[in-house]
């Protein structure tokens, strides 16, 4: 049976993805994502092995033990406001990257900006000079 350390869980769905017997289920709404671990009798430790946060351990089967569910509010993008990731996942990114990579050339904390806005910013940066040049030439 799987035991979850809720302080460590990132809410990333890695365990649910690797589980061969659908014992870890997920629900996602635009604001919230939840993970539910069923009481599992399998002799399999894929979820334990593939948890990035080492939040899972295997314990002896116990019928009386409640099935854990964890829910995570999704963080809103600083620019567009769309919800795009769980807070523990973003904190984890912050701790895995060196400080000099966490701000872009304009000083923006890009980790707290959603991937769609990141692409828009990149496109704007790339075309800025040329847009200026072309606007000048047009009558």
């Amino acid at each position, binding site marked *: 049976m799987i035991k979850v350390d809720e302080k460590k869980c*990132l809410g*990333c*769905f*890695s365990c649910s*993805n*690797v589980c061969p017997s659908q014992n870890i289920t997920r629900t996602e709404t635009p604001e919230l994502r939840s993970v539910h671990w069923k009481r599992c009798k399998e002799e399999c430790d894929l979820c334990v092995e*593939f948890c*990035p946060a080492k939040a899972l351990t295997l314990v002896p089967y116990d019928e009386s033990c409640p099935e854990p569910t964890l829910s995570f509010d999704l963080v809103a993008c600083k620019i567009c406001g769309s919800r*795009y*990731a769980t807070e523990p*996942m*973003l904190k*984890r*990114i912050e701790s*895995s*990257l*060196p400080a000099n*990579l966490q701000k*872009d050339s304009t000083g923006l904390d*890009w*980790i707290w900006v*959603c*991937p*769609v*806005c*990141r*692409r*828009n910013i*990149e*496109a*704007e940066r*790339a*075309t*800025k000079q*040329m*847009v200026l040049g*072309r*606007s000048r030439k047009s009558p």
Partner: protein
Amino acid sequence: MPVYVDISRCIGCRSCEVACKRVHGGSGHVNVHFAGDNASVPVFCHHCEEASCTMACFTQALHKVGERTAFDVEKCTGCGLCRLACPFGVVWTDKIAHKCDLCEGRETPACVLTCPANALSLDFELASRRARARAALVAAHGGRR
């Protein structure tokens, strides 16, 4: 050896997007963006030297092979950390991560071969050589026309 863009040549036709999707089973890794009507640019993986996605990946599914940021699908758990670690938003996760692989197994990436405007190339110097050639041509014709 990533793909380089000569932005002044991009006509915003999205052929690179289509080519990428075609060779990657429907999930593409190129996004063409428009700056009003004045300019367009395809946004895709830079194959960063210090690649954030490889630092965030805990199974080393994403790793550096020379200049390329390579992806080992066997090791991916679909956790989505790489998607959040990419500063340019060009790693996607739909159950499993996917990003530009420079068309592994092909001599030249499909986007480069397809681009009808020759805006994409594997040659870092090409855009500046073209700019110098244009400047020289203008000078030879007696200054700015």
